[in-house]
């Protein structure tokens, strides 16, 4: 949070900063500097790794930790079963990785680490990150669809029972709605994460400015804003879970199109 001329810049939190002097790192001319965003992706990976490793104990009677990991796994498994059916099992590693990575990245980005002087960074608030995840899901859908059904996969754009004269109209509409999927998938997560963080930042700016401006504004603006912030924080935790769920759910729905054409 940068306080310039007494004002809080609510989008400064999304600034990417290069860490450890790795500016010059590049592959084939492309810069791959290790940034704060990369660091939080690494932290997300490590936390998820520790979480799952702690629960992969293979005990018949699970402990609490194992129960938590199996609960998360079972949740994603049920999601796949419900949307795709028996064939959904083979997508479990991918969808679980997706769900786990997004969920943990969202949650870690909300940690109140500023209290100890560290600034958490939400990797999923960048469309460069969510976009890659969305394109990855979309590419898998395309790959599975064409591998399983060949060119017959194009019949996805002609829903069942479409009258023949309607096909020339329906086909482009369905095609466009299909091509928009990766954008909607990636942008939804990015926007939800960014909006929540900006809102929290703006409200905290009110609290700071209101408190500095005097007793009147403290009670009029700062205190209500602070109360609202507490509520929004809870809401953001919910959004963090829901957005991870939505991403995984939509991936399942799209995979179902590819797996069970119509």
């Amino acid at each position: 949070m940068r306080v310039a001329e007494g004002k809080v810049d609510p989008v400064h939190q999304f600034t990417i900063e290069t860490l450890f002097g790795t500016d010059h790192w590049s592959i084939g001319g492309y810069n791959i500097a290790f940034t704060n965003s990369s660091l939080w992706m690494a932290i997300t990976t490590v936390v998820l790794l520790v979480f799952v490793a702690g629960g992969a104990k293979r005990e018949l009677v699970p402990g609490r930790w194992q129960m938590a990991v199996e609960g998360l796994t079972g949740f994603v498994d049920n999601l796949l079963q419900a949307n795709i059916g028996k064939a959904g099992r083979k997508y479990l590693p991918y969808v679980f990785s997706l769900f786990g990575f997004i969920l943990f990245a969202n949650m870690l980005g909300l940690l109140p680490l500023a209290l100890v002087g560290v600034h958490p960074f939400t990797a999923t608030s960048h469309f460069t990150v969510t976009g890659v995840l969305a394109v990855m899901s979309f590419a898998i859908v395309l790959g599975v669809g064409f591998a399983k059904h060949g060119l017959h996969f194009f019949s996805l754009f002609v829903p069942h029972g479409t009258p023949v004269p309607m096909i020339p109209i329906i086909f482009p509409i369905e095609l466009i709605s299909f091509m928009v999927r990766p954008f909607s998938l990636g942008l939804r997560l990015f926007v939800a994460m960014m909006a929540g963080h900006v809102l929290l930042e703006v409200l905290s700016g009110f609290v700071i400015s209101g408190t500095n401006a005097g007793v009147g504004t403290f009670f009029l603006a700062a205190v209500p804003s602070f109360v609202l912030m507490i509520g929004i924080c809870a809401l953001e935790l919910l959004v963090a879970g829901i957005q991870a769920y939505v991403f995984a759910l939509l991936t399942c729905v799209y995979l179902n199109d590819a797996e069970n054409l119509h």
Partner: protein
Amino acid sequence: MPQIEQLATTYSSQVFWLLVFFGIVFFVIGRGMLPKVVSTMDGRDKQIADDLAAAEAARAAADAEEEAWRVQANQQRAAAQAVIAAAKADAAKATEASLAVAAARIDETVTAAEARIAAARAAALGEVEGVAAEAAQDIASRIAGLSIPADEARAAVKGVLANG
């Protein structure tokens, strides 16, 4: 908005590191650890299903056993009732027979005793007659000085006793 302002300078780094870390998540967690977790869950589900099936089978067996036991118990109870009834009938018959024997013996004894009593009574009566005749003879001789023959005295006593 830094996402757009820094797009040109950071996109390659963002994409690269996301692929690196998501790759680690996918291959280490998704491919490496998850199958173990899933197999553990499936194994547990299967074991629970098997245990439930075994319990169900055991319950059915127990029910069948109980039914068989009940049938057997009923049969044995019926048999026991039959034995008791037969024993009762036998006992009643035996009691009847021994009662009949006892009654016959008692009748015999009573008859004999009655005969003995009658004989004793007759003898006693005869003796009373004799004593009375002698007494009458004696009284007559002492008072009237008459000597009455024994036969006459006896006949007179007999007449008096019969009339008295």
